[in-house]
């Protein structure tokens, strides 16, 4: 039962352009969504989050959009930089619990 799905295993974007990473979920009990970034041989690091009562949250070059009716969220990175090359995980937090349910991840490659 895959509650959080990232259907694109990989994405390649040119430096300076916009990167859009997508995530779909099935569990209506998620009250927060988070994005984590992971470099090889390192643990995931927290990037940005959004409450389920919001539809947008912005932090510098990173913006997360939430469409509750479609059960879809996306992470926009503008402009993309070489250091953004990493695996990005989308995660949902179940209301009333602290457990995070992660998607499979999307490997983002920024080409110079």
């Amino acid at each position, binding site marked *: 039962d895959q509650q959080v799905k990232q259907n694109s295993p990989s994405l390649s974007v040119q430096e300076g352009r916009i990167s859009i990473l997508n995530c779909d979920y099935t569990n209506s009990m998620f009250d*927060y969504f988070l994005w984590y970034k992971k470099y090889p041989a390192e643990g995931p690091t*927290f990037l940005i*989050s959004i409450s389920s009562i919001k539809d947008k949250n912005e932090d510098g070059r990173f913006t997360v959009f939430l469409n509750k009716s479609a059960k879809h969220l996306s992470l926009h990175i503008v402009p993309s930089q070489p250091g953004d090359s990493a695996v990005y995980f989308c995660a949902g937090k179940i209301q009333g619990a*602290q*457990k995070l349910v*992660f998607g499979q991840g999307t490997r983002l490659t920024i080409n110079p």
Partner: protein
Amino acid sequence: EAGVAQSPRYKIIEKRQSVAFWCNPISGHATLYWYQQILGQGPKLLIQFQNNGVVDDSQLPKDRFSAERLKGVDSTLKIQPAKLEDSAVYLCASSFSGTLNSPLHFGNGTRLTVT
């Protein structure tokens, strides 16, 4: 501040052997998590501690996996006996209070290979 420390970084064992992983969370972090990340998948929560008590171990295969957090600080995760499907990266994470306002800080993980 020092991050979450995990050891060893890599471990190779044969099936049916036992193995233990160690985690030292960030100082002052009350909540500690063990996640399993199989290649090509996202991390999956195995067990969550609040201080030295277990909050959630619903996805821990208790017939072979065990974990403890003595004195509410360091934690160990043990697998006995190991199976081939246990090959994965085992990630330890900690947070200050276990609420969303204190996001999880992950260690670099232990990569386990079971042959």
